[in-house]
Each structure stands twice: as structure tokens, then as C-alpha cells.
């Protein structure tokens, strides 16, 4: 008896054949894959310019087989603006973490969205500074213990978690703003569709497109990968509701 083997799963063409440096249970790898799948879907790998941020996502060029500029901390949307203005026909995206995008880079992300730059921004929100060792992020949840909030985030003194998908949806330049998660197969499928739509929005010239992806940081949360994944459902999604906050692409 002969069995015809059929390949049903493979590495996206846009990803390099490289082992990532991410910690066990970290979901950057999943999000990277979804971005790569979107580039494969549109066949734009050889045209796309990626802008890496500062943090765990700085090694973008090590994993994506595309041209990459490494931006200073928080400045990726400004760097991407310069690149897009020079190459208006090329897809340009940034990939940023929460400290990068929602703290030090707040001015850049807001004004880039407000100009309606034809960019796709992938925002990995894991409620902590991963690379520097688990300090409080602008998205850390109330009461969340971090290395700089040892007794938990006190909103009276530390402020509140910032909701970027909602905030950016209020700007006229934003065409598409969505929050997704990658904690379940269903959510991964939804996240993949959202990322694809965020690229479609750019390719169609509709405006600024923003995808916030809730993700895990088991190492700095002090959790197992499984427990970390459960925290996304139990604590993060209730505070950061999933959904489309703006869709002006129709």
C-alpha cells in the first residue's frame, strides 16, 4: 500500500529558516508568522520594507527575509514615514512593543496615524518591558507586579493601562484599528485575518492601519507558558477587549 504524503503546513516564504531568540511561550513567534503569512498572501515579500523597534522585536531582520531599518526606541512610525514617502509604492510596516509604541513613542504613533500615513503597524502588547527585564509598561494592568512595581501597579500613582487601539481609532487619519489576541486557535485565525486586512488597507491606499496583538511574556510574568496563555484570557482580554475599533476601509 502506498501513501501519498501531502504537505499541509510549512514555513512562510517571508520568514527565514532561523531559530528565534524568543523565550519559551513567547508569542512574538506566532505574531511574526502571521505577518509573514500576510506578506505571502499578497506576494509582497520582495517589495516590503520593515521597520524594527527597540525591544525584543529589534531582530526583525533576522527572521523576516525583507529589507529592514532599525529605528531608535519609539521612533519606528517616523522612520517608516520617511521610508514610505520615498517609496510610496512599497508596503512598509512597523513592529513595535508596548514600551516602544505606547510610552516613549507616543507622539510618533499618534501623529503618524493622524497624518493618515499609508503604513501598517503591528503592536505587540504584553504588558511589560520584555527585553529590559520586566519593568512596568504603559499597558501593565492595575495591580500587576513588575520589577518596578514590586507591590503591583497602583493606578493612583502609576496611572492606567493605555488602550492604544481605542485611542488611535479616534483619529481621522486612522482607517483601521483593531485589537486581537493569539491565545487560542480561533483568536490566531482572527489575528491573521486582521493583519492581512491591515496590509490590504495600506495596499488599497485607504489610510493608517493598526493591529494591537495581546501577547504573552512568560519569563517576565514569572509564569509557565500555559499559565501565561491563560492570563491573556483571564486578565488581559477583560481589560483590553478584542474587536474592531475603527474600520473606514469600506
Amino acid at each position, binding site marked *: 500500500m502506498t501513501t501519498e504524503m501531502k504537505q499541509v503546513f510549512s514555513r512562510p516564504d517571508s520568514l527565514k529558516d532561523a531559530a528565534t531568540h524568543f523565550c519559551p511561550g513567547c508569542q512574538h513567534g506566532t505574531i511574526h508568522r502571521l505577518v509573514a503569512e500576510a506578506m505571502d498572501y499578497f506576494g509582497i515579500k*520582495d517589495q516590503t520594507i520593515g521597520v*524594527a523597534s527597540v525591544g525584543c522585536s529589534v531582530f526583525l531582520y533576522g527572521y523576516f527575509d525583507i*529589507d529592514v531599518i*532599525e529605528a531608535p526606541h519609539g*521612533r519606528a512610525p*517616523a522612520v517608516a514615514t*520617511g521610508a514610505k*514617502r520615498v517609496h510610496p509604492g512599497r508596503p512598509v510596516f512597523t513592529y513595535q512593543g508596548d514600551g516602544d509604541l505606547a510610552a516613549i513613542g507616543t*507622539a*510618533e504613533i499618534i501623529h503618524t496615524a493622524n497624518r493618515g500615513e499609508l503604513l501598517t503597524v503591528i503592536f505587540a502588547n504584553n504588558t511589560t518591558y520584555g527585553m529590559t527585564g520586566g519593568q512596568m509598561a504603559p499597558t501593565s494592568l492595575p495591580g500587576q507586579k513588575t520589577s518596578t512595581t514590586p507591590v503591583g501597579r497602583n493606578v493612583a500613582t502609576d496611572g492606567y493601562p493605555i488602550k492604544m487601539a481605542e485611542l488611535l481609532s479616534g483619529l481621522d487619519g486612522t482607517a483601521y484599528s483593531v485589537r486581537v489576541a493569539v491565545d487560542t486557535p480561533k483568536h490566531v485565525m482572527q489575528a491573521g485575518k486582521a493583519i492581512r486586512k491591515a496590509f490590504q488597507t495600506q495596499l488599497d491606499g485607504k489610510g493608517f492601519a493598526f493591529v494591537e496583538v495581546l501577547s504573552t511574556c512568560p519569563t517576565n510574568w514569572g509564569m509557565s507558558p500555559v499559565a501565561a496563555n491563560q492570563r491573556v484570557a483571564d486578565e488581559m482580554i477583560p481589560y483590553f477587549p478584542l474587536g474592531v475599533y475603527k474600520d473606514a476601509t469600506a
Partner: protein
Amino acid sequence: MTKRLFVKGNEAIAMGALEAGCRYYFGYPITPQSDIPEYISRELPKLGGQFIQAESEIASINMLLGASSCGARAMTSSSSPGISLKQEGISYMAGSECPGVIVNVCRSGPGLGGIDASQADYFQAVKGGGHGGYHIIVLAPDSVQEMYDLVMLAFDMSDRYRVPAMILADAVIGQMKEGLTQHRYVAPDDLAPKDWALIGEGKAGEQKVVKSLYLGDGELEAHNNKLHAKYAVMQEKEVRFEAVELDDAELVVTAYGSTARIAKTAVRLAREQGLKVGLLRPITLFPFPNAAYQKYASNGQKVLCFELNNGQMVDDVRLAIPRSEVAFYGRAPGAGSLPTPEEFLAQICKHYEA
């Protein structure tokens, strides 16, 4: 293009940049340089270029980083406090070997400072300015014509070495109107195609990356040594200065930018009195004309340095000629008025006779 124009220095630099093929400009308003974005916002779209008034100086310099990384000739301009904000991006550009032109029409003094003419930012410009131990090319025009000419040179030098270039000017040079003779920009023969730049047309295995992070064993040390090797080549090949009546000079006056104009008049007045005085005017502040100072001070000549600050370039003069007597006379940033040629002449006479 032989018609003689009567324009401001700030307009001249904008005109020179566009003539040199600059098609992307990113900036933020600040006195005394706002004529530059105003001119460019009007003229650049006609050439098919892109002008962005950014939300901050920080965003401006990072847009420049993005545009330059994609191989375009791009520029930003600002003044002292704004240049401080740009230093993060300038450091990244230096570390990433990303060319680009930055104009500083300097204000006076720390903090907000004033808007009168000053040379308070010399140290910031020539010693790196941002973190990490790098240099940028620094050119110091002394006239409206040189604002036009040197911005073209800045683009060429910046592209040649993949080192950011700064035009260091002041309110006198920026705001003054003078005659300007425009001329066509001609690209130097030796400028290589930017095969390192991102064009978004990568083929498999031909990924292009503009970055400053090197984590591999020995990579960062090698990278920094490479940067400094380029600075050494620039020191050999790119120094520019103006020599005025230096061949028989017994006293070498030195000054740059607007101060050099006053010094030039003072030197002429001294010559009329029979004093053997000349002027050495650095045009490149980095690379600094060390060899010129060594040449013209080789027979025990005294050197007198004039600056519109409390003494900055004079340190580099003393490093260039450590065995020579180097005197300094300056006016603190914010003096409100410029020194007169007679004021400099009095200093020349004092040091000439001493």
C-alpha cells in the same frame, strides 16, 4: 543661471539643497531658521518632492533616517534646542552609516537661549553631539553664497562617506540678505551608487538592513573602528579652509562663520597699518584643518582665535598646535550685538605687539 539674486542665507541653503537633488525635507518651526521650511514647503512640491512639518524635532530626524535609508537625498533643519532633540537620531544615523544633511542655524546659549547670532554649538557639532563616540561632517559657511555652495558639498561628502553632515550657521548668516549666484549642481564622479540602500526590491538572499546594533563577538568593535577609519580618511582628503594673507603673517587670526567676516575686515585694517597679520578660516570644522594650523604657525607665529562664545574652537586650535601660543577673544552667546572690526583690531594690535 547667471542672474544675481538678493536672498537670505536661509533661503540660499534651501535653494542649494533643492539644486543638489534633495527631494525630502522634514522639519519643525524654530527661529531663526523657519525661512528654510517655509521656502521648501513652497518649492519642493513643484519638484515632485515631499515636505513634512513633523510633530517634533525627534520625529523630523527619524523621518530623515527613514528617507536616507531608502537612498534619497533628504534634509532637516533646526536651531540649537531643536538640534539637541535631534541628537538621538543623529547618533543612530552615524551608527547606521546613514547619510543626510542637518542644518543648525544656531541660537545663543544653553536652554532656550536667545536668537541673536552665536557660535555656542561648536562643541555639540564637532564632538559628536549624541551618545556613542562618533563624528559628523561639519561645514561652516560665512556668506549667503556659501550657504548655497556648502549644502551641495554637504550632500556629496555625506553620501561619499555615509556620514551625516551638518551645516553650522548662525542668525547673521541665516537672516542676512546678500548677493547669490546660483549654479547647476554637478555630482562628483566618485559618488558610488547607493547599493546599500533599501529599495524594497530585495531578491532572496539580498536582504538590505540599515542598523546600528551589532551583538556578534567583535562585531561592534570592528564597526566602531570602521567608523573612525572613515574619519581618518576625511581628515586626509576633505579638509577645507580659507587662507587670507597668511604667507608672511606673524600673527595668525583664526575664526569661522560670521565671526570670520568681521575678522577678515580687522585683518585688512591691520594690514593697512603695516602689521603682518593673516586669517585662517576653517570651512570644515570636522574634519578640522590641523595641518593648516601646523603650517602657518610653524615659525613661532602667535595665533589669535575669535569666536562668538566663551571659547570652544580655540581648544581644537590648541590641540592642533600644542607648542604655539594661542590667544582667545570672544563674546558670550547673547551679547546682543556683534563685535566690530575695530574691536578685533584692538585685540590684534595687543597680541601683535606683545
